[in-house]
């Protein structure tokens, strides 16, 4: 696809942002990072799956509108 966003890149970016936020807050003494990570890391998989499904849906809509390219 030309000009489409790479889902994996978005996922890696979001993971880094989340990790950085958590780490920053734990360094500032607001929360404990590791218990939160141990519980909530599968949320990354959930978000990734949702983004993949969203990419699939938008691609299908786009293709059916433009009348079956490929």
């Amino acid at each position: 696809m030309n000009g489409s966003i790479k889902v994996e890149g978005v996922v890696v970016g979001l993971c880094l942002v989340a990790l950085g936020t958590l780490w920053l807050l734990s360094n500032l003494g607001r929360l404990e990072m590791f218990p939160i990570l141990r519980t909530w890391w599968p949320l990354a998989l959930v978000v990734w799956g949702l983004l993949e499904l969203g990419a699939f849906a938008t691609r299908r809509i786009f293709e059916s509108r433009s009348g079956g390219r490929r």
Partner: protein
Amino acid sequence: MSTVHDDARGATAPAPPPMMSALPPRLPKSPGLALVLSVFPGLGQIYNGQPAKALTFFFSWVGCIYGAAEISGLPFGLLIPFVYFYNLVDAYRSAALINARALGGLPPEEEDVVESPAWGATLLGLGLVLLLNNLGWLRLEALERYWPAMLIVAGGIFLYRSVVRKKAAEKSASDGSDERLY
């Protein structure tokens, strides 16, 4: 450097010839570097620009170690070196393949178009199950005895895919290319 260049402008010294003819064209990836980076599974794949593959290798590796430690040493411990060395070989080969494509020796890679929602649904389901388990609403430990079912599922996937690929090949051979499946 720029001032030296400005001073030398008046002189008739010719510019140094471009080295392009002597050197081979610059390759996008170094297979050796990919191999070395993959000593940590997944890192070489990230260098190659294949994040999905990188995550798959990393989680397979971690999963095998976890399985060997927590569930059963025999199959999972045996799988660790397999995953690890396959990861190394894949990093090297992918980098070499990217180089070969850059040189034009091979057709460009087919764009990884998502053909079915199965990949996203798998990720979503796996994430939800693990999350519920972590939150204490599911008890996956009770399922540990049933791990060989994963082998059965893997075998089923291989069988299904080989059958589908054969059917698709037959179909594309028999009729035109503008076939839509839905």
